[in-house]
C-alpha cells in the first residue's frame, strides 16, 4: 500500500509548532530552543577560552568587546535561557517522579514567572553594576 510520510525535517519542525497548543507544549518547545542555544553557547565559550592561549592582546580585545551593550544583551539572553531550561528541567524531573503531575501547568507558569523576574533583575545587574 502506497503511503505518504512527511520528511524527517518537516516532522521535527513540529517541536517548535506551538500554535493552538497548551502550556505543556510551550514548555516542550522552550526546552528544545534553550537546550540547543546552550549547546551552541558551550562551544562558543570554549572558543573564547582558547583565546587565552593567544596572549594578553587577544584576551584584552575580547574583554573590551564583552563590555559593549550588544554583548551584555547576549549575556541577559544566556541568563534567561539558563533559567528557563533549568527551572523547566526541574519541573520535568519532578513530574517524572510522579510529583506535581496534575499541577504541571501552574507549575510551569510559576517557574517561568520566576525565570522572567530573575532575568530582569539579573539583566539590570549586568547592565548597571
Amino acid at each position, binding site marked *: 500500500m502506497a503511503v505518504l510520510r512527511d520528511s524527517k525535517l518537516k516532522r521535527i519542525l*513540529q517541536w517548535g509548532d506551538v500554535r*493552538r497548543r497548551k502550556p*505543556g507544549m510551550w514548555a*516542550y518547545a522552550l526546552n528544545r530552543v534553550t537546550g540547543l542555544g546552550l549547546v551552541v553557547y558551550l562551544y562558543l565559550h570554549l572558543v573564547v577560552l582558547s583565546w587565552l592561549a593567544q596572549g594578553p592582546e587577544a584576551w584584552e580585545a575580547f574583554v573590551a568587546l564583552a563590555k559593549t551593550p550588544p554583548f551584555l544583551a547576549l549575556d541577559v539572553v544566556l541568563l534567561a535561557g539558563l533559567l528557563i531550561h533549568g527551572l523547566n528541567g526541574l519541573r520535568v524531573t519532578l513530574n517524572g517522579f510522579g510529583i506535581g*503531575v496534575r499541577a504541571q501547568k501552574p507549575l510551569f507558569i510559576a517557574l517561568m514567572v520566576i525565570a522572567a523576574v530573575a532575568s530582569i533583575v539579573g539583566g539590570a545587574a549586568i547592565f548597571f553594576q
Partner: protein
Amino acid sequence: MAIEVPAKVFRYRPGAAPRHETYRVTVPDDATVIDAIEAVWRQVNTLMFRHACHHASCGACAVRVNGYEKLPCIVPVKEALAGRAEIVVEPLRNFPLIGDLVVDVAGFFQKQAASGMVITREAEATLDGRPYQRSETFDDEGKLGERPYTRFENCIECGICLSACPTMAAADKFFGPAGLAAIYRATRPADGAQNKSLLLALADGEQGVWRCHSAFECTEACPQSVDPAGAIMALRRELIARKLKRLFGARER
C-alpha cells in the same frame, strides 16, 4: 435553520502532490464537523474519510480541525467556525497517510495490542448519573466482575494522542501515549496482571516512557480524558521506585 460552511479540506492521492481544496457546503446550524465532511463527500465522492458511530465511541473519524486534533463527530460546526472564515480539516499527524483524511493505523493498533488488554474505566456513570462503586465493578479478589454496563473502554483508540505528541513526530518506534496508557492500566493490581513485570519491562525499554518529554499534549487533546501523560508519569514513578529498591537489594515482586 441551515448555515453555509466553507470547508478547506486536505486532499491527497498517491502519485499526486498534497493540496488543500475549499468546498462550500450547507448543513443544519446544529450540525457537527463530521456532517460538514459528509456534505463535502456528497459533492465529491472521491473524498476519503473514516466515520462510524457519530458519537465519540469508535474513534474512527479523528482528524485535525483547524490544526488541532478532534473527533469531528462531537465538534459543532458553529464552534469550529467561531472567529474564522473557514473550517480547515486535515488528517492526523505522525501516521503514514493513505489518502485525503485517512491515515494508516495498523502500526498503532499493533502497539496497543502489546498491552494485552483494553483500558477499563474505573468509574462509569449509571443511568441515574451516579458513578458505579468499585464493589459493583470488581469482585472480592479485585478481578473485573460482570460489568453492569456495556461501554467499558475509556480509550477509544482514535490516535489523537499520537498526532498531538511532539516526540512521536521524530520517533516512529516510540510506544506512544495510548500504548503506554494501556500498559499502565494493564499493570494495575485490580485487574490481576500476571504479566506486570513483562509490561513494565516494555514501558522501561528504549521506546517506552523515557522517550516522553513531558509536553502533556496527549492528555490535553484526548477526547475521553484517559490522561496518557499522567499514566506515563505514574509508570516512571513505579519504575524509578523499583530501580531504587533493586539498588538497595530488595527482591523483585
